[in-house]
Structure formats: structure tokens, C-alpha cells
């Protein structure tokens, strides 16, 4: 897959492979993926558990455990993250790239007041004085929609509700005005009405502060709501990349088509839901051909032997299927 580096590209991932060395041998979690994140965009990384989406995010932050092996390049504004020294990546983390995790209760420090946790990021990456930082933290807390920030500054995470905690996590992430925010299932642990609030907040941050967001989720509804373009992952491979509306109006990979049919919709009432037969291949399975072949209703002989290349379908829509463009 070749894409040209354009002016507007913030992050360029090329042929990224991640495997974990374990007693059972090398386990490939990500099997060679390439994608671009444009400036000021929100890109969704969607797939089911175990497809490698979170590992990809951790690789961009260089937060993988020591038994992980990385190859390929992750180019962030002209610098290759894969080859960076620990010192360099430390400067980048939290200031230029930051991350929001799924469960704020486990990602926040339970022993620190929340204000101090936001302050820590500023202290690490800026030269502001204590007083300036305090005022800055209060402003950031107000930006993420926390009421009465002067009072909340002195609260501990357990004293806040789930939605407020996630707002604190977001405040930490945006404190240094990063150009890239990675949000790994940031609303999965929250209720629908709170989820709607947080999605709105992330959209506002993207619009007002110009941060690009990689939004990781298994929920197509949320992806449609917030993202400008979408990358669909399956078993360590990228299988389809498209602008959001193109993907939802005309998916071109059998996996994406199947997933969309499997979501209960208003008009599916009273009918049997489509379910993709079989299950996701295990990380230990050798996959010589297309990873989706065993579950695919369109599969034919060639799919067993050969991994399809990306097929361009126009308007930045690409699908990794021999039959892309002819499926429906």
C-alpha cells in the first residue's frame, strides 16, 4: 500500500509489525499495518477484542512491555518513534502525544488529588511557575466542563463520578496541547448519557484546539458519531480504510459488512440477526491467506493461499479483499 506523504499528515505508520516473545514462541499481535493520521482529524481504529488495536496505540506511545518486538516505522512530524531513545520519547509522551484510557479509575493515581495529577503533566513539560500552573490547571478543568474547578482540584479520584473522572483523564491528556491524542475506548465504562457528554467534549477539543485524535473502539455507532475516517482491523491486519460516511454507506470488506449487519438496529426487530459464523482466529494461528477467509461467505480458493493487497476504490476508500468493489 503506497500513500504519498502530504502536508497535512501528522502521523504516518508504515508496515508496523508487533510480536510478543513468550514461552509459546513469538506471537504476532499486529501483522504489518500502514495508515496515516492527518492534522486536525479524528480517525477511528475499530475492531473486536484481540485484533491489535490497543497494541497499535501502545506502540505509538512506545508503552509496550519489554517482550514486545517492533518493526516498521511510525513517523510523527518527521521523527521515527520506533527508533527513538527513551529520553526523547519521554519528552514526547504527555506533551505532543497523549493518551486517554478506558477506565479512568485505574489510570488515575488514587493517592493524588486530581488537580495535582493534571499539574504533574505541566510540571514535566513546561517551565511555568507554580502559580501559573495552578491557574492553568483551573482553566483546563473548566475547558473540560468540570463545575467548580477550585473545589474539585482538591478531590481524590474516588470522590468523583465516572464521568467526572474521565473528564480529569481528558484534562491531563490535553494539558500540554498535544497535537495527537490517542483515546482507547474512552467511553466504554460510561453510561450512555455520560458517553454522549464525553464524545461531545472530544469533538470540541478537536475543533477548538486542533488536536488530532485516534479513537479506538469496538462500537461502530460511536465511530460514526465522532470520526472523520475509519480503519477497520481484523486479526492484526488492517482490512478496510475509508472516510466515515463512505464506510457506513458502502462497506467493501466482508468483515465490515458482516459486523454492520450484526448490530441490532431498529429495523432488524423481529428478524434473526446476522451473525458472522465461527470465531476470531487465535493469535497463535498461522494465517497464510486472508485472515478472514475461514469465516467469509465470499471466500474462494485464492483467499486460502494469498493475502489480498489493498484495492483502492476511490475517495480514499481502500479494502483488503480480492472482491472489493464487486461484493454487492
Amino acid at each position, binding site marked *: 500500500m503506497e500513500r504519498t506523504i502530504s502536508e497535512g499528515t501528522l502521523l504516518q505508520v508504515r508496515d508496523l509489525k508487533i510480536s510478543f516473545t513468550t514461552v509459546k514462541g513469538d506471537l504476532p499481535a499486529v501483522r504489518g499495518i500502514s495508515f496515516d493520521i492527518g492534522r486536525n482529524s479524528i480517525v477511528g481504529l475499530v475492531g473486536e477484542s484481540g485484533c491489535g488495536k490497543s497494541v497499535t496505540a501502545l506502540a505509538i506511545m512506545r508503552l509496550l512491555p519489554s517482550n514486545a518486538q517492533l518493526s516498521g516505522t511510525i513517523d510523527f512530524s518527521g521523527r521515527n518513534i520506533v527508533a527513538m531513545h527513551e529520553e526523547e520519547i519521554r519528552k514526547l509522551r504527555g506533551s505532543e502525544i497523549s493518551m486517554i484510557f478506558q477506565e479512568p479509575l485505574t489510570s488515575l493515581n488514587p493517592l493524588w488529588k486530581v488537580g495535582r495529577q493534571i499539574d504533574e503533566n505541566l510540571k514535566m513539560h513546561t517551565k511555568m511557575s507554580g502559580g501559573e500552573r495552578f491557574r492553568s490547571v483551573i482553566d483546563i478543568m473548566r475547558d473540560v466542563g468540570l463545575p467548580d474547578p477550585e473545589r474539585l482540584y482538591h478531590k481524590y479520584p474516588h470522590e468523583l463520578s465516572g464521568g467526572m473522572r474521565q473528564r480529569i483523564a481528558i484534562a491531563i491528556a490535553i494539558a500540554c496541547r498535544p497535537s495527537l491524542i490517542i483515546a482507547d475506548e474512552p467511553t466504554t465504562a460510561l453510561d450512555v448519557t455520560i458517553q*454522549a457528554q464525553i464524545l461531545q467534549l472530544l469533538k470540541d477539543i478537536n475543533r477548538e484546539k486542533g488536536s488530532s485524535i485516534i479513537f479506538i473502539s469496538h462500537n461502530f455507532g460511536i465511530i460514526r458519531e465522532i470520526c472523520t475516517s475509519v480503519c477497520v482491523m481484523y486479526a492484526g491486519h488492517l482490512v478496510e480504510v475509508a472516510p466515515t460516511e463512505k464506510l457506513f454507506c458502502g462497506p467493501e470488506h466482508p468483515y465490515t459488512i458482516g459486523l454492520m449487519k*450484526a448490530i441490532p438496529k431498529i429495523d432488524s426487530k423481529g428478524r434473526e440477526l446476522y451473525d458472522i459464523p465461527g*470465531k476470531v482466529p487465535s493469535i497463535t494461528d498461522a494465517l497464510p491467506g486472508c485472515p478472514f477467509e475461514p469465516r467469509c461467505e465470499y471466500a474462494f480458493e485464492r483467499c486460502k493461499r494469498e493475502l489480498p493487497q489493498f484495492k483502492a476504490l476511490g475517495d480514499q476508500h481502500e479494502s483488503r479483499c480480492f472482491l472489493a468493489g464487486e461484493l454487492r
Partner: protein
Amino acid sequence: MSDIILEVRDLVKHYPLRRTKLLESPARVRALNGVSFSIARGESFGLVGESGCGKTTAGHTIIKLLEPTGGKMFFEGEDITTIKGERLKYLRRKIQIIFQDTAGSLNPKKTVKWILSEPLRAQGMRSRSEIERTIRESLGLVDLDESFLDRYPHELSGGQKQRIGILSALILNPEFIIADEPVSALDVSIQAQILNLMKNLQKRLSLTYLFISHDLGVVHFFCDRIAVMYLGEIVEMAEATDLYANPCHPYTQSLFSAIPGASTTGQRIILQGDAPDPTNPPQGCPFHPRCFKRMEICTHTRPKTVEISREHSVCCHLYP
């Protein structure tokens, strides 16, 4: 409605908190505040709401894992509010529960065979060969085969674990299944498999479901009737299609509009703030602090539940 299998009348459940002041009675979490509904045989009844609204407490109280603080429950016409001993054991054969977190509800140190035999032994089946036969015969119900019997839960995928969870509920041949968020922990493609399986089982075994979930999309797909709960109360109850076409309570309206991706054109209602603390619910209508249609009366007077059309009731001052 004919042939009501379960009826719940003014069910109340309060959890006392730890005593903080010597002479004052301890604060209470008001998990259920007078919940009433009835479920007809063969129907799927959905209970939706956000975390802390009391939907799981309702499920656990019905199967008598919790003692109700007040109200009455009837199963097949029999008052089950205070039953004990043999009658309770019999009831538990008729009502079974499927849990959300199968990783937590299946004993990690036991094989699938042991897990499936436990309900049989608890109900007094002694003969080993009979237990074994029952298990082998029933595996097909959830599309598994005998190769699974000697595996441990950690050797199963999420979908397979949930199938075992479902089977251990079905193995006693119950009539009524409480499904407490049975698909929330599963991936979309597996979720569809489990929902289809549960639907098919319902037809084959003529089961009645009480389906508890926070996912309105799933509940709407699965259930015939839906009750929406907020802070321990049912705020709206209607047939699924009716509720979707014509949500009346502002909370239901906001829930439907908050389903991501559901409406790309319609007006999105984003509620402000969090759900209030159930130890100290607001005066008047419990929803009024977050309501976008709040009126003066809502702040001090509790609305009454009114029937606005057949099988559609709502608890809101907008519908006097």
C-alpha cells in the same frame, strides 16, 4: 393480558449503609422505590437504565438473592415474597439467571462438566450417570459438543463461556430466565450469535425472559415490552416498537437520542450532569435536576404514573 407468569407490585429495596452517627439511623441506598410490572408467559420483558438505576437489584430480588424491603412478588400466582426452604428451592428450578460477567460467574478451578452438574446436584439429582446423560443431551442446545466437557473456563472464548453460562441456567428446565446484561461483555459478532441463540431457545423451550441491559439497541431488538428505569423507579413502560416510535418521558427521549449513530440527522439531546446519589434522591421528580423540560411543579411534587395509551404508561408531569 392473559397468563401472567410474574407479577411485581410496589417492590422496594433499600440497602442500609454503615452507621455514621450513633443516635441516627443509618443512611439508605434506595435502589428500588416501588417498582411494579407484570410479565406474560412467553414474553421478553426488557429493563433498561443506566448504572445504579436498580435494574440488577430488581433481577436479584426476584430470584431472591436479595430480600425485598417492601412490596410483593407473585410467580405463577403464588406469593413468593417471603418463601423459604423447599418452596424456594422449587422456585429456583423455575427461575434461573444468566450473569453478565461469565469469567466471574464460572468457577475457574472446575471443569465445564462440574459447572454444569452443580445445579443438578443442588436440586437433588444423585445418580452420576443421570447427571452425565442430562449434561450430554443438553450441550446441543447451545451448539457446543462433548469436547468442551473437560475444559476449564479459561480455555473457552467469551462467547463459549456465555453459552456455558446460558446452559447452566437452562439445565434445570426453567420457565423464566433473568438475563442480566448477557451480551454486554461480548464483541459485536459474538453478541449477535448469543442473541440469536437466546431467541431460538425461547421458541424451542417456551421461555420467558426478563432481559436487563443498558443497551437500548439490544433491548429494542430483543424484547416485546420495555420498562425504562431511573433512580429506582420505572419512568416509562411500553411495547418496544411503541416506545421507540413515541418515547414520552424526557429521560427515554434523551436515552434514545444518546445511542451513538442512531440518528445522524435528528436533534441530539445531551443531558447535563450525572445521575444523582441514590442515598439522597432529589425532591419531587427524581429526574428533574437533569431534565430539559423541567417545570416548577417537578421540583417539589412527585409525578404519578399515568397510562397514556394501551400498554404505555409514563411517570411525568407533562402527562397529567
